[in-house]
């Protein structure tokens, strides 16, 4: 049998989407994820610890991420921290969500363009 279709998990909540993004190519602990989300969204998305760990719980259950034992630098790091890593399935879900958002964006842009051109025509008729 196969993994569930990523499409069935869409749409993702903003928190889950940004946590997945934060884990692309880099294992992070909880606070590291918060910092990355804060930086990448230029401070527009503030995740609290409650939202972060409820999301992590759900993402672990859905096999989007796994807890990872290895630490980037044992010397510098706190042993108590738990690190999280994106799974292959998590990456597929992230891609699917990105494609969904791109599709929405295309629709929105097309609509804006048509509105703009309609407005231009109306303006034209007055001139």
């Amino acid at each position, binding site marked *: *049998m196969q993994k569930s279709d990523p499409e069935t998990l869409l749409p993702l909540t903003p928190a889950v989407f940004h946590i997945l993004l934060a884990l692309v190519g880099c294992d992070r602990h*909880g*606070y590291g994820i918060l910092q990355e989300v804060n930086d990448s969204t230029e401070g527009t998305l503030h995740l*609290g610890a*409650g939202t972060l760990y409820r999301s992590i*719980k759900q993402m672990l259950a859905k096999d989007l991420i796994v807890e990872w034992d290895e630490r980037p630098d044992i010397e510098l790091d706190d042993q108590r921290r738990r690190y999280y890593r994106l799974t292959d399935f998590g990456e597929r879900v992230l891609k699917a969500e990105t494609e969904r958002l791109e599709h929405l964006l295309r629709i929105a842009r097309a609509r804006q363009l048509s509105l703009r051109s309609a407005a231009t025509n109306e303006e034209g008729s007055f001139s």
Partner: protein
Amino acid sequence: MTTHSGHILAPSKRLYRWLLRAYPPEFRQQYGPQMTQVFLDCCRTAYQASGTRGVLRLWIPTLGDLISNAIAEHVSTLILKLRKYPSLLNTQGIAVFQKRGDSMLHITNGDTVGETLRQTSLPGNILVWRDVLHEGPTPAHLSLEQMSQVRAQFLANCALGPYETILADFLSRDTTLAQFLIHREVILWFEHDLYDQLQLIQILDWLSHQKLGATSVNLICIDTFPGIANFVGLGQLNPSQLRSLYEKRRPVTKKEIELGSEAWQTFCSPDPKKLETFLHKDTSALPFLKAALLRHLEQFPALQGGLSRTERQILEVVASGIQKPVEIFQATQKKEESPFMGDASFWFYLSRLCTGTNPFLTRVDGSPVSFPTSNFYDATFQEQVIVLSKEGQQARSGQTDWIRINRGIDRWLGGVHLQGPEAAWRWDIQQATLVQI
């Protein structure tokens, strides 16, 4: 910073830890220390940026985050618990039907038989085992609860439902089983095929670790029924026919429990050769077990072509000109001595042959084959015409190997995980034996 910040960080930490009591205990136990750590990290950053005022400002969104997530987590936990106790929540998908009296516990294979049992005059509770153990992982040395978690994850990954719902169903099932001693009698209702025999040996293995006390455990296990020419399973019987079997029940013997337990542990072993060896033993105490487990071994990828018996049968059926999905399923079932696979499992086999780098099956017009996402089969799905691809035709004449041309395998068969560019074990069709590669 530590000296000066201590006056605000220490009480903040204490208060935050106290407020975590708002979360359900399981969640608090699992994530409480990490949440506190993250909150403290945020406090330090806020203090560095804006001093005490920064920490105080941080408390405003923190309280909102804490309250809203604590409520949400309580709701999730409550839903899970309600699903665990079916008498509190009557929803579809609950494994146990409450029925008049609790003097008997009827354990059976699926919902159809469970529903028919409910229509009989037999009193007691009905427990539907409901697990396709011939698909997916059943690793060795797991408790029933651990196994349920593994199975729920596998079935959720197959998109057969949300993990939490499936797990709640299994936990409800396991809780009912664990309380079997409150019943005067337990009756195991099973048939002869692989699906049922695996459920039976899993239950017998569990019973082998229990003290049966005053509860009598009885077995009804058949492969024929008078008047039914092509008996496939208990689901074919009406309430009156099913009721008549009750009189023919017989106590489960110690020998059956021991044999069932050994069979289950062997099935869950990562070494499939143990299962093959087991089949050379005397298994007559459970007369249908040998044929069923042999059928399981035939699901290993063949030495000749890399396909399971189900997949080989699919190719044969399609090559014979049967090309619509439901008809392919029906024709494939007819090739089985004892059909065991439901349609939901079957679509996974069919879809596997339609996907991969070099699919063996394709739609006649070359477009991708679609598969149902629910029990409802619409015309688009049913009317698809599926044919052999070029590779599929080569496979039929033994010129190509599925695993080799589709970049390996990742499949569990009981306790055996076949993974990598080559399957570690294959089934030699000609010699009817497993071969280690």
